[in-house]
């Protein structure tokens, strides 16, 4: 009779041969295998002293880039927020006033730009969606915290410091942006 689930397995209770019954050959075989492992190189990384190098495509904490003159790239177009599958990004757009040309590259900018790091799944789709090369995922790890509120990162923590630029060239060379 065919079983309902079609996953029926016949258990084989075959009789052991004499060599199997006395266990010893199998035991010596096993001991030989473990003995060979004595001389293997171990894979342990002594963590606090050594850290494993991140892959070039590692996706960690986001950064909002500035251009060469230090102006924010983001124009608050909202494509990243639309692309975000976790709905982690919210922003408020604002128009650039006269005299702010040194701060923002184009006429529109993000007055507030927030990424909820608890929602974010670090997929990198925001980076893919961004037409202005403004948002990138970096090789920095979002630090842990006891307070939930502190995981909503605003522009204060996302926009890179003008004197302390964050290197994203590794990310740029991996994707489509180099092709254009």
């Amino acid at each position, binding site marked *: 009779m065919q079983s309902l689930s079609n996953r029926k397995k016949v258990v084989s209770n075959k009789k052991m041969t004499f060599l199997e019954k006395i266990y010893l050959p199998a035991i010596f075989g096993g001991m030989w295998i*473990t003995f060979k*492992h*004595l001389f293997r*190189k*171990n*894979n*342990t990384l002594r963590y606090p002293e050594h850290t494993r190098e991140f892959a070039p495509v590692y996706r960690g904490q986001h950064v909002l880039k500035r251009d060469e003159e230090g102006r924010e790239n983001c124009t608050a177009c909202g494509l990243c927020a639309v692309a975000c599958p976790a709905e982690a990004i919210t922003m408020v757009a604002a128009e650039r006033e006269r005299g702010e040309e040194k701060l923002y590259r184009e006429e529109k900018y993000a007055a507030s730009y927030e990424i909820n790091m608890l929602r974010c799944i670090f997929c990198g789709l925001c980076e893919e969606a961004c037409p202005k090369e403004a948002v990138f995922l970096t090789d920095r790890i979002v630090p842990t915290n006891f307070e939930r509120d502190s995981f909503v990162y605003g522009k204060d923590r996302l926009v890179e410091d003008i004197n302390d630029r964050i290197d994203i060239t590794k990310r740029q060379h991996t994707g489509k942006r180099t092709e254009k």
Partner: protein
Amino acid sequence: MEISELIEKLALIVALFGVTLGIAAYATYFERKVAAWFQDRIGPDRAGPFGILQPLADGGKLFFKEDFIPAAAEKWLFIMGPGIAMFTALMTGSVIPWSTDLVLFGQTVALQVADINIGILFIMGFLSIGVYGIMIGGWASNNKFSLYGAIRASSQMISYELAMGICVITIVMMSGSLSLRDIVNAQHGMNWNVFYQPLAFVIFFICSLAETNRAPFDLAECESELIGGYHTEYGSMKMGFYLFAEYVSLFTSSAVISVLFFGGFNFPGMDNFDGNTLAILGIVAMFTKTFFFIFVFFWIRWTIPRFRFDQLMHLGWKSLIPISIINMLITGLVIAFNEGWFK
């Protein structure tokens, strides 16, 4: 008994005590190290250089744990259990001859705490009493898992003691003495018992795995079924005593194996030396063999999965005992033939 002899024996006892405990402590460290090597890891390496202070850290940790006695436990037996386990484990070391006589300050010092003429019986006796430590501890905990562990341990030890005893009888028949020193002296040079009694050695080795409650026979503390077995309810240094007693008996049974089957302090080419040189080389030989067997114990533990309890009993009663009896009978026949009984 002269006062000097008393001092000599006391010094020997203290030295043996220290050495046994030290080796047992470092056996815990090397157990973890060897396990790590077998599994392509590094093992403990944080406490001191290469982690050599790990046993101290472990002991310190155990001392600072809460020393808890369950309300339903039989209080005095509960306290006695680890003590008995530790005591019996330590006592077996006292009859083991560590080397030939050493001459110190014009005195001949026998490197054996007690050269009693029934040494091997003494060891077998204390191995049997070792069950009480586990049984009393498991029963006094008033916990069903502890009791299961204790029952398993005692039935396993009783079953494997039979085959072990029969193997010992074959050795005793060959050397004609129950004294461990005579057994060792009969294996002078490279004339080791293992070459005459390989089957008895294999059976004895398997039985000592079972007697020391080590994998693949560690059903008594099988954590996947019985939490911790007989020491489920124990904490702090009482549990430390149980764990430590296991390593002490690991050391003593390795020593007994090397005495009975691998010539103890005998080594090939020992006739070229005499006096203190021979004694010291004998100690080195003895400890090399012992450490090798400790390593083999570790090696087996990290290779073979645990037996099922019915397999364990099956192996003990239906395989090891008949084989060892046949082995003993054949040995007896060969000895009788050599002595000319059939002429």
